[in-house]
C-alpha cells in the first residue's frame, strides 16, 4: 500500500501529462529543428517580447505590491481589511477581464482616461501596457508573499535596529527589506512565470499595438493557426516558453536555498502597527486612490461597457444587453463551467492532499510541473494524445475503452493537472506546519489511523486546503486558454462563450457576461470572507 499509492499516482500523472507532452514534441521534430526555428527574427522578437513584458510585469507587481503589503500589515491605514481585499482581488478574476476594462479606459484614441489627459497621450497597447496589466493582475502573488513575510518577522529585530541607532528608514532598508526580500523575489518570480504563460492579455494588447508587441504565447497561437507546418514551429516556441518558465523557477528555488533565512518568531508583540498619525489621511488617500485606479476602475469600466447602447458611447445607459445572461446558451455554459470547476477544485484538493500525504519529493515535483507548462501547450498535447479512443487490451480481449476525445472529461483533466500544484503545495505546506503530536495523541487515545487522520491532521490542513479549492474553482470557472482548444463539440463554457462573443459576435454581450462573472466571483469572495471570519470568531 505504502508503495502502491505513490506509484499509481505517478503513473497517472505520466500518462495524462508527460506522455502527451512527449507526443506533441515528437510530432514537431527534434532539438535541431528547434534551434533552426529559434534563429529566425520573428522567434527572437517573440522571445524578447516575452522576457520584456514578463520582467515588466514582475517589476510592476513588486513596485505596487511592497508598499501595499507594508501598509496593510504594518500601519493603521484606513480600512486595512478592505484594502487587502481589494489588492488581492485579482487572484480570483481572469486577466482578460482587466484587459477589456483597460482598453475602454486607455486606448490611445477614445479611452476614458486618455480623453482626460489628451488624445494619444495614453496607450495601453504595446509592451508597457501588457506588462502593466499583467503586473496588476498578478499583484496578489507579491502582496500575499510579502505580507506573510512581514507578519513573520519578529518585531524585536527591527526594534533592535532602532536601539542600535538606526532611524525608521535605515531600519527598513537594512533589516526589514533584506528579511522580506526572499519572499518578495519568489513572489516576483511567480509573477514572471504567470506573465510569460499568459495568452489573453498579450493577444488583446500586443497584436493591435503600434508597433505590434509579439510574445511567445501569441506566436504559438498564430503558428498553430497556420496549420501543419506551423505546428512544428509552435512546438519549438513552446519549448522556449517551457525553458523560460523552468529557468526562472529553478533560479528562484536555488536563491531560496542559498539565501535561506530562518525567521525567529517574536513573543507575541507582533502585529504592532505603526501609527501614521497626522499623515494617516494623506497616506490612506494615496493608497486607496492607487488601489481604486489600478483594480476597481477597470472592472467598473467593464461593467459600464455592458450598459452602453453601443461601444464607446459613454453617457447613456441601457440594460438591453443584459438579456444575454438569461439566454439558454449562457445558462447552459454557466452550468457546465460551474460543474467542471467544482469537480476540478475538489479533485485538486483531494489528489493534492493524497500526494502530500505520501511525502514523496519526486511525486510532488511531478505534480508541480504541469503548473509551469503554459496552458496552450498542455491543451495542445492533450488534444493530440486523446482525440483517438484508447483501447486497453488484456489477454487479447478488450478490457477497457478510454474515449476522452471530444468530451468534457478532457477539459476536466486539463483543469485538474494544471492546478494540481496548488493543492499539493498548500497541503504539503500545511502538513509541514501541522503538529504531528495531535495525530499521535489521537492514536494513543484509541483512534484508528483513519480516525486519527480525520481528527488530528485534517483540521490542521483544512484551512489551507479550502483556500486552494476555492482558488482553483474561481480560476477554472472562467478559464479560457485551455478551454478554447479542448471544448467538446456543441458545448460552451463561460470562458469560451466570452471569447466567442468578444471576438466574433457581440462585444457588448461579452461585457455583460464578464460583468455577471465578476458579480459571481465577488459573491463567492464575500461568502468565503464571511465563512473565514466566522471560523476565526470560533
Amino acid at each position, binding site marked *: 500500500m505504502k508503495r502502491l499509492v505513490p506509484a499509481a499516482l505517478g503513473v497517472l500523472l505520466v500518462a495524462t501529462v508527460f506522455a502527451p507532452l512527449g507526443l506533441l514534441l515528437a510530432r514537431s521534430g527534434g532539438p535541431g529543428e528547434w534551434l533552426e526555428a529559434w534563429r529566425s527574427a520573428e522567434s527572437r522578437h517573440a522571445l524578447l517580447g516575452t522576457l520584456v513584458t514578463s520582467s515588466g510585469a514582475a517589476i510592476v507587481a513588486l513596485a505596487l505590491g511592497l508598499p501595499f503589503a507594508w501598509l496593510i500589515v504594518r500601519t493603521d491605514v484606513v480600512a486595512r481589511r478592505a484594502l487587502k481585499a481589494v489588492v488581492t482581488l485579482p487572484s480570483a478574476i481572469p486577466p482578460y477581464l482587466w484587459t477589456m476594462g483597460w482598453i475602454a479606459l486607455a486606448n490611445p484614441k477614445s479611452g476614458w482616461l486618455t480623453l482626460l489627459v489628451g488624445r494619444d497621450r495614453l496607450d495601453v497597447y504595446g509592451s508597457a501596457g501588457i506588462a502593466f496589466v499583467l503586473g496588476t493582475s498578478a499583484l496578489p502573488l507579491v502582496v500575499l508573499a510579502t505580507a506573510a513575510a512581514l507578519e513573520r518577522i519578529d518585531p*524585536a529585530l527591527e526594534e*533592535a535596529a*532602532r*536601539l*542600535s*541607532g538606526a*532611524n525608521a528608514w535605515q531600519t527598513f532598508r537594512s533589516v526589514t527589506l*533584506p528579511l522580506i526580500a526572499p519572499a518578495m523575489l519568489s513572489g516576483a518570480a511567480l509573477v514572471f512565470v504567470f506573465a510569460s504563460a499568459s495568452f489573453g492579455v498579450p493577444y488583446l494588447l500586443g497584436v493591435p499595438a503600434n508597433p505590434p508587441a509579439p510574445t511567445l504565447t501569441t506566436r504559438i497561437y498564430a503558428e498553430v493557426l497556420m496549420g501543419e507546418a506551423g505546428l512544428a514551429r509552435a512546438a519549438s516556441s513552446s519549448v522556449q516558453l517551457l525553458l523560460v518558465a523552468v529557468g526562472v523557477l529553478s533560479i528562484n528555488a536555488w536563491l531560496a536555498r542559498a539565501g535561506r533565512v530562518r525567521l525567529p518568531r517574536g513573543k507575541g508583540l507582533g502585529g504592532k502597527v505603526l501609527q501614521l498619525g497626522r499623515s494617516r489621511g494623506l497616506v490612506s488617500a494615496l493608497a486607496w486612490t492607487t488601489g481604486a485606479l489600478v483594480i476597481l476602475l477597470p472592472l467598473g469600466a467593464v461593467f459600464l461597457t455592458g450598459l452602453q447602447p453601443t461601444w464607446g458611447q459613454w453617457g447613456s445607459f441601457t440594460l438591453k444587453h443584459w438579456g444575454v445572461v438569461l439566454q439558454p446558451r449562457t445558462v447552459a455554459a454557466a452550468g457546465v463551467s460551474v460543474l467542471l470547476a467544482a469537480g476540478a477544485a475538489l479533485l485538486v484538493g483531494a489528489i493534492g492532499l493524497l500526494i502530500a500525504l505520501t511525502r514523496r519529493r519526486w511525486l510532488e515535483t511531478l505534480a508541480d510541473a504541469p503548473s509551469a507548462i503554459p496552458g496552450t501547450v498542455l491543451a495542445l498535447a492533450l488534444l493530440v494524445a486523446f482525440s483517438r479512443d484508447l483501447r486497453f487490451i488484456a489477454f487479447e480481449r478488450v478490457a477497457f475503452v478510454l474515449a476522452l476525445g471530444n468530451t468534457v472529461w478532457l477539459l476536466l483533466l486539463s483543469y485538474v493537472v494544471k492546478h494540481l500544484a496548488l493543492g499539493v503545495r498548500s497541503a504539503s505546506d500545511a502538513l509541514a506546519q501541522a503538529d504531528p503530536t495531535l495525530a499521535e495523541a489521537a492514536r494513543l487515545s484509541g483512534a484508528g489511523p483513519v480516525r486519527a487522520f480525520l481528527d488530528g491532521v485534517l483540521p490542521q490542513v483544512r484551512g489551507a486546503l479550502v483556500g486552494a479549492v476555492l482558488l482553483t474553482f474561481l480560476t477554472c470557472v472562467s478559464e479560457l486558454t485551455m478551454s478554447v482548444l479542448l471544448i467538446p463539440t456543441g458545448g460552451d463554457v463561460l470562458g469560451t462563450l466570452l471569447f466567442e462573443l468578444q471576438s466574433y459576435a457581440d462585444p457588448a454581450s461579452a461585457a455583460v457576461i464578464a460583468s455577471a462573472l465578476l458579480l459571481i466571483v465577488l459573491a463567492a469572495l464575500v461568502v468565503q470572507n464571511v465563512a473565514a471570519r466566522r471560523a476565526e470568531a470560533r
Partner: protein
Amino acid sequence: MAAVELVEIEKAFGATAVVKKLSLTVREGELVALLGPSGCGKTTTLRMIAGLERPDRGVVRLGGQVVDDGRAFVAPERRGLGMVFQSYAIWPHKSVFENVAYPLQLKGASNVEAAVKEALGWVRLEAFVQRRPHELSGGQLQRVALARALVGQPKVLLLDEPLSNLDVALREELRGEIASLRAKLGTTMILVTHDQAEALALADQVAVMNKGVIEQLAAPDVVYREPATPFVAGFVGGANVLVGEVQGTSFISEGVSFALPAETVAPPGPHTLVVRSEDVVLGAEGPLLPLQARLFMGSATEYRLGIGNSVLRAVGSERLEAQPGQGTSVSFRAVRLYAR
C-alpha cells in the same frame, strides 16, 4: 544625577491600564530589576524608556534630559541606549561581525573592527566573528546580542527578559556573565524579569511590580526579608498568604485558629498573614491540618497541607511521620501581618 527618571507615567492599551502613575529613579551605574508576573506592565515600562512605546501621560528623562513628556519626543535611535531582547533579535541575514558592527557603522565610528573584537571578547565569542546566526546556539546568540547592545557604549542597557528563553544551566552561566560585565564596564542597567532569583542575584535595587504599579522598591535583601505588601511577600519569597482575623494572640483563617509567635504584636481586626514555608513548623503543636502531598526535593522536603480550599506549604529538613491523608499539627515560627 539620575540616569533614568520616570515621573508618574501612565499607559493604557485600549481600555486596559497597563502602567499607572509609575515613578522610578535609576542612579548612574546602578542595576535596577523590574520584577513581576507577566502582564504587570514591566516590559511596557522598559519599552517606554526605550522609546518603543509612548506614555499617555508623565515624563521620561534620561541623564536629566527630557526624552518624552507628551510633546517633546526623542526617537529611540537618538537616546543612546542599548537593548537585549528575550528573542535575541539577532539579524539572521547578517554575520556575527555585521550584527555587532551595525551600531558602530551607523555612528560612523572609526576602527570598527577593533571595537567589535573587543565587544565579542567581553562575551567570549572572538572565535565566532565570521559565523552566521543559524550556526549558533541560543546562549551564543544572546551573548552576541549583549555584545551588540554594549559595543556602542550606551548610557543605559535595557535587558528585556534576556535569559528566559535559555535552559537552566545556560541561564546561570549568562547571569554570571552579565554580573561580571557590569563589574567591568559599570554600565547602568535596567533588567526586566519574572524570575525572582535572577532579580535578587543581579540587582542593586528591585522594583516589584503588580498591575501597573511598583509595590516595593528596595535592595534585594530588604525585599526578601521585609516585603512591603503581601503580594511582594508571596511573589518574591514564595511565602504563604492567609486571609483572616487577629483575635488576641491568635489568627483565625478558614475557621482554623493559629497561635501567633510571641514577638508578633498586632491590633485585633482583619489582617493578611504572610508566613514563609520554612517558618511553618509541623508535628509540634497547634491545630491539625490534613497532609495532602509530600514532595522530596533533596536537601529538604516540601509538605502540602489543606486549609479550606487552598494549600499551605511547609519546607523542612526533618522527617515527618504523618502520611498523606492524615492530620498533622501546624504552628508558625515567624509571621508578618498586614492590616486589611
